[in-house]
């Protein structure tokens, strides 16, 4: 895979720039999805995806074959998303703030145990509404947590790949993922507890 990408890049650098189309075809979906998951905005995702490809294309001569092209491309996407996030005026509170002000979410389990109805909760966990709630939660995550969770659990990057893309040590990545999961879990519990 990597060799194929590098070969295409070499072709481009030799003047056959139309070969870049192959890279677009190969990665556009993944790039778009990462941007979409991180910005929750289809229009913005399209812009970011385009910009990422263009940026990479303009710096093609600086590509270091020691690293995977995909990592470089996705890192560009990720940085653009983070920039966008930081530049946006945030009116909505982030998940951390919402959860701190919420009551203890263990209420959900205590209720289920007391009612003697863990199956009821299980059933709700199997329903489609779960994914909707989770999407909402992901959207509310602070960008640093959102990026790692999206990459790990939605795009199925390995920890190593995430570390490459975000240029952060693995330890940091893991810590962020753990925190992100915890936040999402609390959010989920809170929402499920609201439905009686």
């Amino acid at each position: 895979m990597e060799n194929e990408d590098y070969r295409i890049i070499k072709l481009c650098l030799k003047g056959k720039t139309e070969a870049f189309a192959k890279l677009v075809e190969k990665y556009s979906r993944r790039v778009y999805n990462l941007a979409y998951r991180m910005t929750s905005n289809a229009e913005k995702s399209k812009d970011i995806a385009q910009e990422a490809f263009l940026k990479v294309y303009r710096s093609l001569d600086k590509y270091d074959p020691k690293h995977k092209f995909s990592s470089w491309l996705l890192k560009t996407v990720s940085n653009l998303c983070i920039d966008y996030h930081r530049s946006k005026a945030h009116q909505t509170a982030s998940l951390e703030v919402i959860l701190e002000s919420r009551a203890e979410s263990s209420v959900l389990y205590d209720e289920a145990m007391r009612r003697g109805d863990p199956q009821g909760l299980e059933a709700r966990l199997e329903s489609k509404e779960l994914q909707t709630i989770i999407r909402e939660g992901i959207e509310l995550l602070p960008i640093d947590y959102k990026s790692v969770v999206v990459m790990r659990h939605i795009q199925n990057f390995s920890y190593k790949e995430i570390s490459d893309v975000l240029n952060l040590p693995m330890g940091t990545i893991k810590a962020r993922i753990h925190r992100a999961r915890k936040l999402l879990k609390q959010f989920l519990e809170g929402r499920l507890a609201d439905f009686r």
Partner: protein
Amino acid sequence: MNCDSCRESFDDFIDRELSSARQAEFLRHLEECARCKLEFNLFNRMIESMERMDEADPPPGFNDELVRQIAGTRTEWIDNPPGLFLGRSLAFWSWSVAFCGAFLLFLGTFVLDGGAQQANLPPVPMSAEDKPVLAFQDEMNREEVSRVLQNAKTEEEQARLFLVRHEGRVEILKLGASEWTPVEQRISMGFGDRIRTGEDGSAGLEFPGEVALRIKPASVLQVVSESELRLNAGETWVMVRRKGRAFSVETPNAVASVRGTKYSVETRGVGGVYHDALRQEGATVAQILIQSGDLVHGAPRAGLALARRFWKAPGLEDVLTKVQVYESSVWVASRLPSGEFGPQQVLPEGFGTEVAHGVVAKNTLLEERDFLAWRRVMVYDGSILEKARASLQLPSLTRPATVDVVEPTSTSGPGAIEGFEDIQKTH
């Protein structure tokens, strides 16, 4: 392990970073503590739900628009090409030119063709060869995985298929052995090994952390490789745990393969209680239901969507097979009376098709290896289908057509399923 440390272990368990000892403790605690179990289930479901989220498509024309933009973009390295080939030998130049030519040819073709299209496969003639295939991915039962890993001696063993649970009559035939022997707990199966269950038997198998299978009564399963199993008779539920890990299940009558989705594949052999049921209830069409996506409400935790097939006894021609798609898309190729297969088509969600001589169905493009020898088909009991439908809460299917009941000629010989008839006799 107490509740606090249990909760603290959630992350490590999901990331498979707990030692076997800690895993065992963890799972034991979950067994004993209903509250922690509940909490862990929520956590687990949350992760799974994310892993199953669909990818969004970029807006239409995105690629083309981008390529156009790029074509019009000037860059520093275009204006000042890096001196890659200055001073290179002529030989190198020739090589690279040839390579470019070949590559561009490919690229040209690619651009002209545009997006993906269905390939029309040449008809594959039927062969009588027995080819084991089939792999499922099954949803992992954490408890079983832990127990298995606890006892796995080596890294290599961990990559094998382990028996984690069995009830009733379950026997194994190791590759090269001449006799079936009763299984023992945590026995491991490698390539070529077979396992079978009696009428009262059932078994749970796992590639720890990857795939889980539930083998139903009166089934025979053969291990081919890490991602291929063959179901010679009966029914197996399979769930793929990890997205992207492909598994295919092959039965002599059809192939179902899936990538990170859930389904079950069923084959019924001639003889035994199934035949009796058929004689009483009457024969109906067999249906292949291929479903992907979330667990359906009401299905067992480790259960799956199902794919059913039926077997046709030798000589019976007018039995219908129906493929009904409930989610996503399915590629199907129907078998022609000549024994070859017609071109494959895509069935989108909600669509179905009925064929007379059998079908191959898969939720990605069919490949040559998916076309198998058509060996036996049996008329199928409609009541089993009803039960399955109820448990899965599937939308109501069209009323199946009725055909004549099949009379098996014998319980051994060409019509019988290997391994199946012996269980029947000893019952």
